[in-house]
């Protein structure tokens, strides 16, 4: 069964420039799907359209068969869509514990907090009572953002460049976590990434460039073409190589 289906999605900047031009795809429940492609190709905008942060200028989105195109962010979150921002916001006064409890919808005991933060390579003892303010580094705040989405246990979790700003060791732990989610069938993952290690664990890969789907299909089919493109002097998909 498809958990998410996009039909001819489009989104324009206020000056009329099209960022998402005509995108259609579907994602099967329980899969790990990676969206990749050149910078500026529309990947983050697509994620925001799915989460309800932006409204499409054309097209439709279906979640578990229901048309959610006109539903707002809150309504989509309640249906089971979760979104980890590429650049997480900071909060004065909210602690890591507050954020994770808000995300999960209930109080969390120490063991649960430890489990959630451990999935992103953080020690709960050191972090639960810290404020989500400027005292945390970019990598720390990013990992807490990811943990907040994991805490939701949503039907569809969207991660926008989860690797950005994260050290190699934490990133390796994060890749394991994504694999665990898939293995346990505890949700569908849509990950925007340029990282080969994440592409390597995908069930499906969607390549987006210049606001269009350039390729989509099983990893075994799409990844070799991407790797071949990376070695070519100029990427045939667009402005730059999809792999970084």
């Amino acid at each position: 069964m498809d958990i998410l289906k996009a039909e001819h999605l489009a989104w324009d900047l206020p000056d009329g420039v099209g960022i998402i031009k005509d995108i259609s795809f579907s994602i099967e429940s329980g899969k790990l799907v990676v969206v990749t492609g050149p910078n500026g190709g529309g990947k983050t905008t697509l994620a925001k359209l799915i989460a309800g942060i932006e409204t499409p200028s054309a097209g439709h989105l279906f979640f578990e068969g229901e048309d959610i195109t006109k539903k707002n962010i809150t309504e989509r979150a309640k249906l089971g869509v979760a979104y980890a921002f590429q650049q997480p916001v900071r909060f004065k006064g909210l602690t890591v514990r507050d954020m994770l409890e808000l995300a999960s919808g209930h109080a969390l005991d120490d063991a649960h907090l430890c489990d959630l933060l451990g999935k992103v390579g953080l020690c709960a003892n050191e972090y639960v009572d810290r404020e989500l303010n400027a005292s945390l580094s970019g990598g720390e705040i990013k990992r807490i953002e990811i943990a907040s989405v994991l805490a939701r246990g949503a039907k569809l979790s969207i991660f926008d460049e989860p690797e950005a700003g994260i050290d190699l060791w934490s990133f390796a732990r994060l890749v394991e976590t994504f694999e665990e989610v898939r293995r346990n069938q505890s949700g569908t993952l849509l990950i925007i990434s340029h990282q080969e290690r994440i592409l390597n664990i995908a069930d499906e890969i969607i390549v987006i460039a210049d606001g269009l789907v350039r390729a989509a299909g099983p990893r075994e089919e799409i990844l070799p073409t991407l790797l071949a493109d990376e070695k070519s002097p100029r990427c045939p998909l667009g402005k730059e190589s999809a792999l970084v």
Partner: protein
Amino acid sequence: MNKITESLLRVVSDFGGTFKGAYNVREDGGCAGRQSSEHIKLESKKDGPGLIIRVAPGTKGETVYIPACVTHGGIDDLVYNDFYIGEGADVVVVAGCGVHNEDDSEARHNGIHRFFLEKGARVVYREKHVGTGKGRGARRIDPVTDIQMAEDSYMEMDTVQISGVDSTMRRTNALLKDRARLVVRERLLTNGTEWARSDFDVTLEGEDSSADIVSRSVARGKSRQEFNSCLRGKNRCNGHSECDAILAESGSVVASPSLEAANLDAALIHEAAIGKIAGEQILKLRTLGLTQEEAEERIIQGFLK
């Protein structure tokens, strides 16, 4: 004490039906209960309204409660409380104030607290203010805190104005000797047509003295706030003051920081930020399932925590 006082005390001073240890409850300008402890003595001033509170040197782990409540209009309560904190003592002072007014005339409490910390003394001072009642008469609370800090002393002020106070004029003055440290965490919420002003005047006179003042405020409705701070560095010292304010609806905030350094090694910093709730913060909480209104409330609640 009357029922209104009991109700206010539960909000402003952790009152659970009784106080443990030393306390004095002030109600409508009179004394509604007092008790000294072995190490903390409370006595009435002989030259005017108020108390002298003496904490014996070396007293550790005790709390003294000195809440004040005004329960109806037509009261203008003025009180002078002097705290003498003995050398090496380490105590908590809880000094909440609640003003309830169902009348047309004004109800006001004006508490002037003077602290004298001896060498090595430590005080955590907690002060919570609230206004209640539906009377047309204003609810006013105008606290003044004067602090004299001897060598190696430490004072932490945790002050909060929750809601319902129509007008407040808060003044805090401190003089710090060698290695003394003052920490202030102030939180103010105003709504409707309320007005709040908070002034700090802190002099870092001693070598290696330090002060860290953080004021967080939210101005909602048509309320107005003013924040004025003056940090004076007269020796090798560290001073930091910060004013963070969130505006909602038609609220307004004026922040006027001032630094005066009279020593090459005086390190003084001021930070001020005033603005509405960041849109990205609301978006993040909405992606967790909160509505716009719930997200705003949660952000303000956390900000003022």
